[in-house]
């Protein structure tokens, strides 16, 4: 009987730490996969400073009037001729006109009842065409 009592227990008296790394890496991968880094994106513009008024010659202005129906009326400088286009055609018009007059400024005048997306469509077309001088206004009668 004395021999039996001397038999050692086979169970280790230490906490098994071999799987600790597995647990930690599992958590690490879980957080790496589930983390979403929010990145803001959009169309950036620079607003004018308050009371900053710039005189621009009419012949350097390309008027783009956005109506609530979605049509864009293009009016060049002082000419009273109005060309009716869709927002996607603005890109081609800008490229054509800016080639003739490098000092051209786009004046986007949106009707107060027109949807915001129409203005974004026109602004997008201008930015795709590389326009940098853009003025955003609301259409006043």
């Amino acid at each position, binding site marked *: 009987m004395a021999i039996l009592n001397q038999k050692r227990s086979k169970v280790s008296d230490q906490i098994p730490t*071999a799987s600790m790394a597995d647990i*930690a890496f599992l958590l690490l991968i879980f957080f790496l996969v589930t*983390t979403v880094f929010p990145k803001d994106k959009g*169309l950036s513009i620079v*607003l004018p*400073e308050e009371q900053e008024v710039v005189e621009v010659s009419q012949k350097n202005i390309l008027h783009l009037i956005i109506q609530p129906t979605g049509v864009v009326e293009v009016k060049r400088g002082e000419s009273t001729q109005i060309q009716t286009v869709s927002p996607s055609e603005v890109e081609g018009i800008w490229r054509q006109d800016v080639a003739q007059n490098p000092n051209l400024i786009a004046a986007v005048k949106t*009707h107060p009842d027109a949807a915001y997306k129409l203005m*974004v469509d026109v602004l997008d077309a201008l930015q795709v065409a590389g326009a940098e001088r853009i003025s955003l206004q609301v259409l006043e009668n």
Partner: protein
Amino acid sequence: MAIKGGGFERKSKASQEIPSSSLADIAFLLLIFFMVTTVFRTDRQRAIEWPAAEATQKIDEKQKNILNIWVERDGSIFMNDQPYTIEEVSDVVGPLYAASDRRLVISVRGDREVPYRTIDQLQKELVSAGVVRVVFATELEQRVTRERR
């Protein structure tokens, strides 16, 4: 003088196994690093439909210098999860703009169907608050996929 085995039987004291006891420490260190450096956005997403634009670009500014102004379809305005009237915008944005050392970028998150009247009023408020840099938040529109259809 004959040494048994010529001394070649001596065992190397270096272990054959790669030491893995510090692996857990490395992993936890990485874990804590990512937990500390992760920044979650502060305001909740609101139910808006984004306008789409091809020229969409990422805003090159730190997250803390970006203020989101949400404009919902009915024209209601939210900043940092709080509703505001449009007249209050300049009073709220002005001090924040000054505190950010004029680095603040305003991200206008408007619903695509909101009337332009509201956006124009908002722009006027921002101009009176002295803000210069504004971004109209949009979703990227893929021209290639649109044209293939």
